[in-house]
């Protein structure tokens, strides 16, 4: 089988980069003095990056005219979820070592952790309903369920911003990209409504 002819095969490999990088760093002792923090943060930023890339597919299609880009959106979204799950696992396992009372206290104490958990809960149904079968079964509701990616992405940026001690520059960059991606959607929708409106008025008169 000619896997290498399929762009999805290459995209899959590219999406494994964050994990390959962490493995190489772990192997070569490059994770710094606090490897657990390094791993948790790295997985978290990649999960957020994955969400933003997934959200960039629609604007990229529209701006480039390559409608076929839609084919890669599911894989990108699933990889974002994959890194989100690893990020959560590294918190639960490496950072807290499954100390549930401490985790509960942490979630209550640190709203940003609750935000992170909420993002995970919102992304879970998206991942579970990503198959063709689920799309067919859900019909129009599929779109409604997958609308959850918007609050999830906003929650993820807030989750990041809230954890920072003082220097907000990194979360602001992610927030800026997200604002742009959401802003484009609002702008296009607004334009479409303005275009549709006169026709609607005319049909009524």
């Amino acid at each position, binding site marked *: 089988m000619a896997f290498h002819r399929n762009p999805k095969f290459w995209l899959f490999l590219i999406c494994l980069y964050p994990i390959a990088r962490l493995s190489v760093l772990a192997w070569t002792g490059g994770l*710094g*003095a606090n490897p*657990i923090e390094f791993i948790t943060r790295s997985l978290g930023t990649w999960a957020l990056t994955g969400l933003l890339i997934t959200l960039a597919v629609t604007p990229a299609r529209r701006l480039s005219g390559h409608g076929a880009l839609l084919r890669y959106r599911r894989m990108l979204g699933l990889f974002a979820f994959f890194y989100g799950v690893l990020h959560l696992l590294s918190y639960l396992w*490496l950072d807290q070592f499954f100390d549930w009372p*401490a985790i509960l*206290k*942490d979630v209550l104490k640190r*709203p940003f952790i609750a935000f992170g958990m909420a993002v995970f809960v919102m992304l879970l149904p998206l991942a579970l309903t990503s198959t063709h079968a689920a799309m067919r079964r859900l019909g129009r509701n599929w779109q409604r369920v997958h609308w959850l990616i918007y609050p999830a992405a906003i929650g993820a940026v807030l989750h990041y911003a809230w*954890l920072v001690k*003082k220097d907000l520059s990194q979360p602001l960059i992610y927030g800026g990209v997200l604002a742009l991606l959401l802003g484009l959607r609002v702008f296009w929708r607004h334009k479409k409504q303005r275009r549709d409106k006169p026709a609607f008025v005319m049909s009524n008169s």
Partner: protein
Amino acid sequence: MFIKPATDIPSSEITSETVYRERRRFLTGAAALAALAVTPAQAALPPYKKNAHGGGETANSWEEITGYNNFYEFGTDKADPAKLAHGLKPRPWTLAIEGACRKPKSWDIDELTRAFPLEERIYRLRCVEGWSMVIPWLGFPLAGLLKQVEPTGNAKYVEFVTLHDPQQMPGQRRAILDWPYREGLRLDEAMHPLTLLAAGLYGRELPNQNGAPIRLVVPWKYGFKSAKSIVKIRLVEQQPVSSWMKATPREYGFYSNVNPEVDHPRWSQAKERRIGEFLKRPTLMFNGYGEQVAQLYGGMDLRKNF
């Protein structure tokens, strides 16, 4: 030179000579390399007395201590100071002690470390972010220096001011904090025998990223209280406003004593991760120095005075 024996430290707390030497042998190579990389013409520190306040704990490695730093003058990432602190020029350096005292004085850094005998103190350092290290500092008690300038009755607090020079400290080009970095102690805290002015670590001069050429070390308080690269020590009547208090008064108070029962508004302080360890360990009241310092805070509500 008169060196006061450390009477408050049980001998069991002192790192054994063999352990110390083994550690030293391992470190010499790395330390020599690092020293070469910083400034080839570094003046050697005067001889020092070996001593320990570490609770018998193993010190973190040179790489850990010099590669993982919060020193926002060189960037907010903990790897930034090691990368960007090479531009700091720790010699010549003047430390001025002024304010409410009879004999204010400006010290050249090398005269200072010759005048006040250095001793090694192995202290725990607990960062407000929830991690900790054990560090073999080289320094002298701040009390000696303060006594020498003869504080007046108006001296109630001590303020510490870090160098302000965006040329040498690129992190100061962004207004992350209100530069220069300021910290403060109550006079009795500053006079406490555990409070150290450190000029070295692991038997060598302080690397730039650790606050060269002279920094404060207050082991029972969160790390940010221990101001680095100090140019000015002022005796004052009013409680100083530290840079972190000014930045987020709700999150950082004047005292900032290590306290597992008083959480940071955004995270728990009950546990900490010792750098190099996998499982978190419980944080100790006053970072384990309660026996020596708790009486400083008798009758105070530490929840209010956080």
